[in-house]
């Protein structure tokens, strides 16, 4: 990620950034959570707001440097402290990404459950050769990420802010096609399980348990 560190001088950086009305409303809610003098704690949520607003406005969810300066000013902290946070967390994109940011988890559980196939399917469907690339139509950017915390439903693919789980090659391709058509399915398991409930229905607590006899009954 070395090249990201100097984003300040890259041509794609916008000169300015301003929060829109929707973000402003959110900011007000967020800042109320922190006592005065401690607003700097809100740096993470505010950077997320930036990324989401950029996605709304430009179709690409990323954090421009101008926006980091705006956050610094709003939270009364030195800009470098915001740069540090924004560059530390890989969840913040420091350069434009495709409209749909494909973040494949390749950590051990997902890998054991076939994340390689998910990666291959993403590459194939989006026409991308490797991680970090964006498809020619600007729709998809592929990234490799570490554990997304949904290992029970491995393998997992995060698209923008939503997780799609229990994937295999076909379902990954179908998923991307749905996104391309502009019909993103609801996030969660792609095989219809609810949350992390066992595949194919409940496996425990399946029979009624006889209630114990009431105390004192013969």
């Amino acid at each position, binding site marked *: 990620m*070395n090249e*990201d*560190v100097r984003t*300040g001088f890259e041509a794609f950086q916008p000169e300015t950034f301003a929060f829109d009305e929707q973000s402003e409303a959110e900011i007000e809610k967020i800042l109320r959570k922190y006592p005065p003098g401690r607003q700097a704690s809100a740096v993470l949520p505010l950077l997320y707001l930036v990324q989401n607003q950029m996605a709304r406005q430009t179709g690409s969810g990323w954090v421009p*440097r101008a926006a980091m300066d705006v956050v610094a000013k709003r939270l009364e902290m030195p800009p*470098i*402290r915001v740069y540090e946070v924004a*560059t*530390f967390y890989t969840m913040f994109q420091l350069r434009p990404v495709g409209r749909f940011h494909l973040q494949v988890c390749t950590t051990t559980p997902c890998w054991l459950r076939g994340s390689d196939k998910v990666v291959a399917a993403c590459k194939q469907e989006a026409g991308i050769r490797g991680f970090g690339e964006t498809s020619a139509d600007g729709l998809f950017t592929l990234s490799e990420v570490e554990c997304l915390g949904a290992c029970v439903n491995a393998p997992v693919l995060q698209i923008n802010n939503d997780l799609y789980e229990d994937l295999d090659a076909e379902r990954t391709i179908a998923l991307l096609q749905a996104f391309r058509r502009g019909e993103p399915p609801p996030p969660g398991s792609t095989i219809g399980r609810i949350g992390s409930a066992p595949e194919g229905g409940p496996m425990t607590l399946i029979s009624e348990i006889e209630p114990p006899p009431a105390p004192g009954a013969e």
Partner: protein
Amino acid sequence: MPKVTIDGTVVEVPAGSSVLQACELAGKEIPRFCYHDRLSVAGNCRMCLVEVEKNPKPVASCAFPVADGMVVWTDSPMVRRGRRGALEFLLINHPLDCPICDQGGECDLQDESMAYGLDRSRFREQKRAVRDKYFGPLIKTVMTRCIHCTRCIRFAQEIAGVPELGATGRGENMEVTNYIERMLTSELSGNIIDLCPVGALTSKPYAFVARSWELVKTDSIDVLDAVGCNIRIDSRGPEVLRIVPRLHEDVNEEWLGDKSRFALDGLRRRRLDRPWVKRGGKLEEASWQEAFTAIADRLGRLNGARIGAVAGDLADAESMLALKHLMQQLGSNNLDCRQLGEKFDASRRDFYLFNTTIAGIEDADALLLIGTNPRREAPVLNARIRKRWLAGNFPVAAIGEPAELTYAVEWLGNSPQVLAQLLAEAHPFLKRLQAAERPMLILGQGALARADGAAMLAAAWELARKAGLLRPEWHGFNVLHAAAARVGALDLGFLPGEGGKSLDAMLDDGVDALWLLGADEFPIERIGPRTFVIYQGHHGDRGASRADVILPGAAYTEKHGTYVNTEGRVQRGALAVYPPGDAREDWKILRAFSAVMGKPLPYDDLESLRAKLEAENPIFGRIDECPRRGCADLSGPKGDAQALTDAPFVSPISDYYRTDPISRASPTMALCQEALRANMPIAAE
């Protein structure tokens, strides 16, 4: 106090010390990269490992507090193995470029590698490379060498008060950077070069100039502001190549301002290296004899009362005394050192000194700044104010032009009328001062140089008296000088004598001949057209441009000289290299000229001149003594405290990087000025 056993010796250490500090007290040297005793503890390099009994693993001693009865081993096999391991990790990504690294020879990493390094690498993978950063014209970065000790980040944040450095990315991608590729906006930025334990941050102007072991090191005193920072001048042959700070706890600790460190390339430029005499309206090269004769011809014909002398900002006390004696021999009382027209009252020393002393700032508990911008006028002293402010409970208020001083300041307004209100007990900050136990005020040169400067001085003293700044055991009245020569000049009475003229009266043909001893900062254009001007100094600056005769003198690195800093501390600078060409040490020039006039000054060597200096004012014999002062006599300086006008304050230093003939001749300082300007639009947004 806890007792700790270190390698078998029992030492008693203050509670709250770290194990590393305890080891130092026991005389054990602990290797370190990230720890620095003036910075917060980071504990990230792991080089300071020691073994603590009952601890299964080695501990990082810099971040480990002592406990009573602790038993520590600093050189056990476990310790050595641990340090070797830490060092091996540090070297994994460190390039093997010592032969082309400017830190070579004075690099902590090199030194520790001698002690704990392996002679080969077991690392077979790719080393990482990091793009270099732009920190401005002073600091060169080779960031692949950085070992992430974060000293520079902590210095910028804590000491300099400009949080512009940070660590971006993480893990293998961590980089120390300012992210936005702009010059660091600190007057103290050069200190991160000294702090960086490796060659990641080195001096840009000094890049590839010399190896540390080729340099001759001369301990001296800085003269580019009035703090009197202790410096070491590193030279090779006839050239000064580097200036670095020397430790003096009571003056500069171990810091140095960027101008004092980097203006040295100005010492090689625009130098006056031979005498010049004006013939037919044009300056022509001349011999010393010709120059002296030209002056003697002119002065010989004049009445003493029509001759004047002005001492400049960088002059040493010895040459000022010699010039004073020369003027007395010529029958002149027209002496002045107040180039800005400051209204001093030199009848008592504490009317013009920084009485609290620089180290004393740390004991103060309230501060009022009057017409001063200490950050520009004395950056190292400003760092001391910030240090005190960081310790908490230190209200600072200021009357003057608002500026970012690196600590919180309550700006009371830019008008002397605020001072009048304070005096009239009509301003709430008076209560804060009165409530404080050791309050202080600092009066700047900008305030004293005003038309109502005398009133300002009297009013500030009056306020000091009223608010309890003056006590038998505490002296809270401070004048912050900007010129290194000024206090020395006042101490030896380089002021108009009986019936003598001030600088102002000497201008506009108030005298027929004017001897300028390195004086360049007063309005030269006001020298009358008929005045014969002798400029004695080292740079072809403003004064020399108006001269009829130029006598080439020595810069501060080229002479043994005595300087008195703003606290009244007498210190001695030393000759590191000889003056260029025909230039000579200044007192010798004056002595030689007096012989031409037929009345040689009564000293043939530095010792006898210094004896005269001490006879003039005994403080010149008390080198580096600066006791904490109290104030027993509350009567104030002359001047009418009521006569304050309401003209706003203006700092005498508009540009920190160009204040004197040396820094004005320095290309590096010019670059700084430019780079700072390039920063401006962003700083203003």
